[in-house]
Every structure is written in C-alpha cells, then in structure tokens.
C-alpha cells in the first residue's frame, strides 16, 4: 500500500518525458545497431559476393576424375596381345545393410569367403564412412559372380563392381616385347609430376613399367575425363552435374607375329637364348623372343614376393631380355662384315687366297692361334672363308686391316650403339677400339686383340637385335632401316551426328624414316659377300648346309660359335654353374629368300651342350623360316645358283643344275 501512495504523488509528466527521452535514445541505438548489422551483411552479400560464391561452389562441387581405357595391343594379324579384362569384386555399402555382421557371414557362406577375411572386412567397415563402399572380395570367379547374382535380392547393399584389368593372353610369350603395366608407385608419381602429366593420371591405377607398355605409355594411356558432381558436407555424391568423358588410349598394332613367337618359344625350349626376326624391307620386327621368359600378368596386380624371388634368383635370369640386353660375342657371324671391310679397304679381292695350315702365328710371337679345323682349310679365298668359316683367313685380314678400320666400319653397322628399337630395355654392347680400351681400361691395344676381333671375339659384344640390324644393312646393301615393333596406331572416337552416336576409327601407319645409308666405293662388294653367305647355306659341305637341306625357300646365312661365352650380367660366381657357363654359345644369322629377302633371322643360344652355331642355332633359324614361309615355294630366277634345291625348283629345273 505504501508503494501505491508513492506512485500517486509522483510527477507523472516529468517521468513520462524522461522515459520518452530514454526510449528515443534506445531507438537511435537500435537503428545504429541495425545499420551495423545491415552494412556487414551488405558487404558479405554484395561486396564479397564473388568470393563467397566461389567458396560455396568449391564446397559443393567436386571434379571426379574418370580414367580412360588403355589402348589395346594387337599383333600384325590382329591377334589381341594385351586387353582390358573386367574383374569383379564384391563390395558393400555399410549404411544400406541392417545387420552387417549377420549378412556378411551369410554371403561368406554363399561365396566361400574365409572367416578371417570377413573379420578383416568388418574392421575396415568400422574405419570407413558408412556410405563408402568396402571391398569384401577383390577377384570373384565367374562361378562366384553367377552365384551371387542369383542371390543378390537377399543382400541389399551388397553389389558386384567390375573394373578393367590389363591382361596378356599369351603370358610369357610377349613379356619381353610388350612388357607389362603395374600399380603406379611413388617413383612413377614423381616422374609424372615432373613431366606435368600428374593431372592426366589422377584416376589411373596402372602405368607401363616395361617394354612397349612403357615406351608407348603416352599413346596407350589416353586422356582423363571428368565427372562434375555435387557433394554434401560428408562427401556423399548428391548428383552429377556434368560429364566430360575420357578419351581412350590409342590401340596399337605391332609388327610381331604371335605365331612366329610361339614357334620361337618352342624352338628355344630348354635353352637360354634369343631369336630376333626382322623384315629387311622396312625394319619391322616379326619375332623377338628371349628364353626363359616369365608371365607379365603376375605383375599387373602386384607379384607376390615368393614368386618374385623365384624369378629373381633363377640361374636362367628370366628377367633379362636376351634379344636386346643379352651381350654375346658375335663370333663368326660377323665374318661377312669383316670381309666387306677388307674388300672395301682393298686388302683382299675375291680372288685373294691364303694358305691355312690349321693355325695362325704372328711374326715374332710364339703363340699359335688354332683354327677350328685342326688340319686347316688349305687354300682359302673369300667365298670359302665364309662357307667354311675359316678363322685363319680372318686373323690375317684383321691383322692387315688393324683395329681402327674394323671398328670404324662396324660402328656404321650399329655395333656398340643402341639399335633404336622401341623399347627401353636395351644394352649397347661393346665395339672395341683403341680409344675405347684406353678410356675403359687405360691400356694400350694389342695386336693379338685385333686378331680376336677379326673372328668376333675379344671385347666385342653384341645383342641379337644389333646383329639382326647389322645383317639387315648388309642384306639391304647399305640401306639402314630402324628396327621397330610398332606398326600402326588406331584412334577410336565417338562422334555424335544428329543425336546418333557412331564410332569412327582412324588407323595410322607409323612412318619410320631410314637412317643415312652406308655408301661403299664398290657396290659389287655387297653382292660378293651376300653370295658367299648364300653358298654357306646352299653348298654341300658348307657350315649352314645341313640345317637348311630341303627347304622350299632359298636361304643364306652364317654360323658362329663363341668360345668363352657367357652373357655378361652382374651375377656371382657360382661353382655349380661354372662348367655349363664355359660352354660355347651358338649363333646364327640368316636371311631369305636370297634374291628378294623378306626376313632376317638372328639366333643366339647360350652354353650349348655340344657343337656350335651350325648344329644348334642354324636349325632353330630353319624352324623359324619354315614357319614364316609355310607352304610358299619361292622359285629363283637363276636356279643354277641353288645346287640342292630340288624341292624348290621341281624336276624341270633339275637338269639345269650344274
């Protein structure tokens, strides 16, 4: 009641005025504060609109890279050598499954997945976001895919995902040429980053690691595509905004003939060695096989350390591509080239003869160098020196030529240099010279070493690809082709015309320009040497005669047997293998048909049990040529030159024989 009284005596007007004033001041304050709020929002929504618009978009829009399909690889006849095979994995999206443990056990029973594996899956489910798929089984068999598909309705949230995996249907037959792809590793990533290709590989899992897969990585890979998606704050994809499809890699067609490869493998089975076949008309490699080989498919999904160590520790060194990395002394196979050098340097003529007593001795030197024929070849001229592979003839010729003239000429034939073949796994071998020896060993050159070089030994090492390349130059009479495996590329593009999708394929042959030719003073010298090689195979008693008896085509060639002979690899001395390692290497080079050569074949076989090139390598070359020519009968314009080819020339021509 006292309070009431006090109110009644209050000065109402003064109080009302005071209150109105204060209310008005408050109102001004409110206006100012509203203005502050408004100007702040104005600055956010108007002045900084672009900035926040961008931020908002980068919040919600993600570019998902889409990997292009890798180009396929075909052999020259269109046989698929490298394909992309779908592999099926079983995955689950945890949030779509009510009782994940129970369902997992059920699916495990259905598809025979071990309890151990299920436990692992459960663990990874717990550590991942609930809407992200978790892999249960990485490689389902066709049987498992079928079983699951029938029962899929019982397992909501479980699904089969198909991915493409590189597959080489011919396995070890193509590994040394095609190579393989494998998972991109840290080193690859750094390299891609350096080359500015990292963006293009954002979605790619595998990269070419060896052979053509590596060499033509850029051709085969293609261009990445992008899917623009809207995501929410947890990264879940809400919808696709746009899709820019990837451009698949180009398909490539090789010059290889897979059937020749198969024959090569068969011919080399149980041996360590290499076969290389080249078309002298264009430099195409028709076959290139190194035995033993290994299955490149092992590497595509990551090789087990057990398998890897088995291959790595194998005495037969399967990782070495003997065709391009195997270093062999060329032995007698390069005698025709030495002879050509002699003719060119006018040290010999076709008529020039020496007498071979079975050994060669330098003046003032006690050591006698023995010929392979104990009692000697007697009188030997150019043709006979090749037919019978007379060492003494070439000791004499090499002595007179000297190392410098020999190595200068041999370098023109590509020895000591990379062949230029389109794979990276290649060694250059050694073409020794005075300068080379000084640089390498800081030693002077000895004349004795020149003699050894004359028969393709000493420091001289070649790879089979170099050998086939050099013989091709000889066969082409100086023209220098670039040996290559890639024949053509095929680009497939989707075209949309009038809303209709169609596919256009454009195949382009790869053009290889010849290197500058070797010009010699007298072109007749080519024929002299080639003729001698022809005789080496065709003449009764010559070194190549037995192996090529009765062919339906007209071959020429040269044998070789290297004495010391082990391919130089960084392997440890091993007592158990020493004996075998000291056995001879067998070599053979050949070409056919003689008058218009289609193939040049080089064969190198390590450590043969007995005999040399004639009995070990030449028959292998014959098998290859038989396969290549098949039923073809190649009739020569001048049958008189083919003494024993009754089969080829038929009965009509027999009378013409000498």
């Amino acid at each position: 009641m006292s309070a009431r009284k006090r109110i009644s005596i209050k000065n109402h007007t003064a109080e009302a005025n005071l209150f109105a004033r204060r209310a008005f001041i408050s109102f001004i304050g409110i206006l100012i504060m509203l203005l502050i709020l408004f100007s702040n929002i104005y600055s956010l929504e108007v002045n900084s609109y672009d900035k926040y618009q961008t931020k908002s978009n980068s919040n919600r829009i993600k570019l998902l890279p889409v990997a292009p399909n890798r180009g396929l690889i075909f052999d020259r006849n269109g046989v698929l050598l490298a394909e992309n095979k779908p592999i099926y994995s079983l995955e689950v999206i945890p949030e779509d499954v009510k009782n994940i443990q129970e369902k997992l056990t059920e699916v495990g029973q259905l598809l025979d997945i071990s309890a151990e594996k299920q436990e692992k899956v459960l663990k990874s489910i717990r550590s991942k976001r609930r809407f992200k798929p978790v892999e249960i089984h990485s490689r389902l068999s066709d049987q498992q895919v079928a079983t699951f598909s029938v029962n899929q309705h019982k397992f909501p949230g479980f699904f089969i995902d198909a991915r493409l995996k590189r597959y080489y249907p011919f396995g070890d037959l193509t590994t040394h040429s095609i190579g393989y792809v494998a998972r991109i590793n840290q080193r690859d990533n750094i390299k891609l980053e350096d080359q500015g290709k990292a963006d293009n590989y954002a979605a790619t899992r595998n990269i070419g690691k060896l052979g053509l897969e590596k060499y033509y990585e850029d051709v085969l890979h293609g261009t990445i595509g992008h899917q623009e998606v809207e995501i929410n704050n947890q990264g879940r994809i809400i919808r696709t905004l746009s899709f820019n499809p990837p451009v698949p890699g180009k398909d490539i067609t090789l010059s290889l003939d897979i059937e020749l490869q198969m024959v090569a493998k068969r011919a080399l089975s149980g041996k360590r060695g290499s076969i290389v076949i080249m078309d002298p008309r264009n430099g195409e490699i028709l076959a290139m096989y190194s035995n033993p080989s290994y299955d490149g498919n092992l590497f595509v999904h990551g090789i087990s350390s057990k398998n890897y160590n088995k291959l790595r520790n194998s005495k037969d060194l399967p990782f070495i591509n003997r065709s391009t990395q195997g270093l062999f002394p060329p032995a007698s196979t390069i005698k025709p080239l030495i002879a050509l050098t002699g003719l060119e340097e006018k040290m010999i003529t076709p008529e020039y003869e020496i007498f071979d007593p079975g050994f060669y001795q330098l003046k003032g030197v006690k050591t006698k160098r023995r010929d392979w024929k104990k009692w000697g070849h007697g009188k030997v001229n150019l043709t006979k020196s090749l037919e019978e592979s007379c060492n003494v003839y070439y000791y004499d010729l090499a002595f007179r030529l000297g190392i410098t003239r020999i190595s200068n000429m041999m370098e023109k034939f590509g020895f000591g240099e990379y062949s230029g073949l389109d794979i990276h796994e290649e060694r250059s071998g050694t073409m020794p010279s005075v300068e080379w020896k000084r640089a390498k060993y800081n030693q002077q050159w000895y004349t004795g070493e020149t003699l050894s070089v004359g028969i393709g030994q000493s420091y001289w090492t070649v790879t089979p690809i170099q050998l086939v390349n050099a013989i091709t130059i000889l066969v082409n009479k100086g023209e220098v082709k670039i040996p290559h495996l890639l024949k053509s590329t095929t680009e497939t593009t989707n075209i949309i015309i009038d809303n209709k999708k169609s596919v256009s394929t454009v195949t382009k042959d790869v053009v290889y320009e010849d290197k500058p030719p070797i010009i010699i003073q007298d072109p007749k010298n080519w024929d002299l040497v080639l003729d001698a090689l022809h005789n080496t195979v065709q003449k009764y008693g010559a070194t190549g005669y037995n192996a090529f008896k009765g062919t339906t085509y007209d071959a020429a060639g040269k044998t070789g047997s290297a004495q010391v002979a082990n391919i130089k690899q960084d392997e440890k001395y091993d007592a158990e293998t020493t004996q075998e390692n000291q056995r001879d290497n067998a070599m053979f080079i050949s070409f056919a048909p003689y008058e218009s050569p289609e193939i040049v074949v080089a064969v190198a076989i390590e450590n043969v049990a007995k005999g040399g090139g004639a009995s070990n390598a030449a028959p292998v070359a014959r098998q290859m040529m038989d396969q290549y020519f098949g039923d073809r009968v190649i009739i020569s314009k001048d049958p008189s030159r083919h003494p024993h080819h009754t089969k080829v020339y038929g009965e009509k021509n027999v009378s013409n024989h000498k």
Partner: protein
Amino acid sequence: MRTTGQDQQRHRTLLQRIHVDLPLLIGIVCLMILGLFVVYSAGGQELDIVIRQSIRLGIALVVMLVVAQIPPMSYQKWAVPMFVLGLMLLVSVLLFGHIGKGAQRWLDLGFMKFQPSEIMKLIVPITIAWYVSQYDLPAKISNIIIAFILVLMPTLLIAKQPDLGTSLLIACSGIFVIFLAGASWKLIGVCVGLASGFAPILWFFLMETYQKQRVLTFLNPEQDPLGSGYHIIQSKIAIGSGGIHGKGWLQGTQSQLEFLPERHTDFIFAVFSEEFGLIGVSVLFAVYLAIVIRGLYIAINAQQAFTKLLAGSLTLTFFVYVFVNIGMVSGLLPVVGVPLPLVSYGGTSMVTLMAGFGMIMAISTNKRVHA
C-alpha cells in the same frame, strides 16, 4: 474508477477485449510464417519438422494470449516471491540439474524438464521495474546500485551453468530497465568502465574453456577452419553466396547440402540470407524494426512507470536477441547460443518470448483500466 473502466470496455473492439495489440500481432505472425518456410528448407524439407514447429507456435500464441489477460499491475505483487523462487530454482539447477550439451540448465521435475533461466528472462525485468518504479524517476544512485545487485545475482548463477547467452540477455533486460529509469550518464560511464575492468575477471575466472574457444574462434575463424571456426566460415559463405537476390527457396546449397551447422536453430539466419539474399534480409529487418517500434510506442504510451519500464525493457531485450543472433551468424560477434527470435526452430525460448509479448499486449490494452 471501476465504472469508468466498464463504460469504456463496452466501446472497445473485440481485439482490445481479448487484450491483443493488432500491429504487434501482425509483426509476430509475419515472422512466424516466414520462420516456418525457412525451417522447412533448413530442416531437410520434412513436413514433420514444420508441423512440430507449428504446434509450438500455436502453444506460444496461446501462452501470449493467456498472459495478455493478466492485468500488468498485478505482476508487481508477485515480483518479489517470483524472484526469490527463481533464484532458488537457479541454485537447485546448479546443485541437482540435468546436464545437457555440457551445461546444467535443466531441472527434471519428473513429468517435464524445466529451464528456470527461461522464466528469469521475465522475472528479472519485472522485479527491477517494480523495484525502480517505487521511487521517483530518475532513479537515485543507491536504488540503482541495489537494482544492479538484483540483476547480478541471477546473471552470475546462469553464467555459472554455464549459459552465457541467457545470462547476457537477462543482464540486458535488467540493465535496460535501469537505463530507461533514467540512470545518469555519469553513472553509465562509470559502469562501462567497470564492465571493461570486469572483462579480464570474466575471462580468467568465470568463462569455461569452450566459451573462451568461441571467443578466440570469433576473433580468428580461419585459424581453425575445420574445427571450431567451421561454423562461422560456413555461415559467412552461406550469407555471402546469397548475393542480392538469394539462391531461391530450397535452393541454398550451403544449407541443403548440410555444410551449414545448426541450420534450423541458431544459424537459421544464414539459411534465410542464402536463399533470399539481401532483399530478404531487408524485409526481415523491416519486420523486426516494426515490432521494436511498436513495442517502444506501447511503452511510451503506458500509464505507469512500472509498465513503461517493463514494456520498454522487454522490447529492447527482444532486439538484443535479434542483434546477438544475426551478429553472431554473420561473424560480428562470438558464437553464443541465442536463437533468432520467432524464426528459429525450438520451443522453450519461444514460449518465454511470447509470454513477454503477452505482457506488452496487456500493457498496451490495459492502460485505460488503471489510468
């Protein structure tokens, strides 16, 4: 007096008879309808959430109507006992309170959970207005000091829960009464000085780690973009990317794709700005301003000092809600849990707020009765 009142009652309109102030009601309903649309958009476009919010709004409107029927002068009788009871409840919350979201705010009464700090939002201005209006205005310093102590008690108890947002609002509601009661400018100056002296004490002794973190985050949100700064960064992105016209209703990517936290509650303003842009914000501000103007108009025209002070304080506190919420969402103020009044999804604070509006309406429609 009574007969005059009855005479006038006959001339009054229906709305006046049920103690409803039409302009205020229009403003409130506008915000509520607007709020329902934004809640629908922010709440994942589920009708369920809109229905629940509508029920709350209905209850809140009923509460407002009921409160409006109570003659405002009768609050005075209840001021002291209510205040004492309120303090006791706050103490018991600290002692036996239910812990939710890291703070003790709730009292479990068995049949319902009850947040005493909410009623204090009303009891404090009533008590201070009652106390100050007993004496002549402008209030004397001694009275003001006592009033301050009265404000400080519930404020500190609530800050201790800890609920900084509510304690701030309650402190404001009391201080506004003191300000409107004509506290001298000198005194206001001294108080501001004292408050700034109090800030370090607040920082070192009263604030919890999470509250300090909020202040630090406010000062530099980019320092921890994925942690505590995330709310503010995402909220600013939402507002900024709205632009002048907004992205359109239901089209706000920040909110629809859930980048924005607390979308339908404390950060609903960000959703609104993202979808309706600067134009929408202008309209919203206009509605809030209209409500504030109407509230102050009612206060100025109230007949007694008590009702003037109460209506004025409630109106100004309402604006503080708006200012603190929008200021926090747009990055001007640290994050304190204050909803956007009448728009944000949520019940308790809405009911208190509407009870406050009920009082303002009672003051608006009862002035002649007690004149």
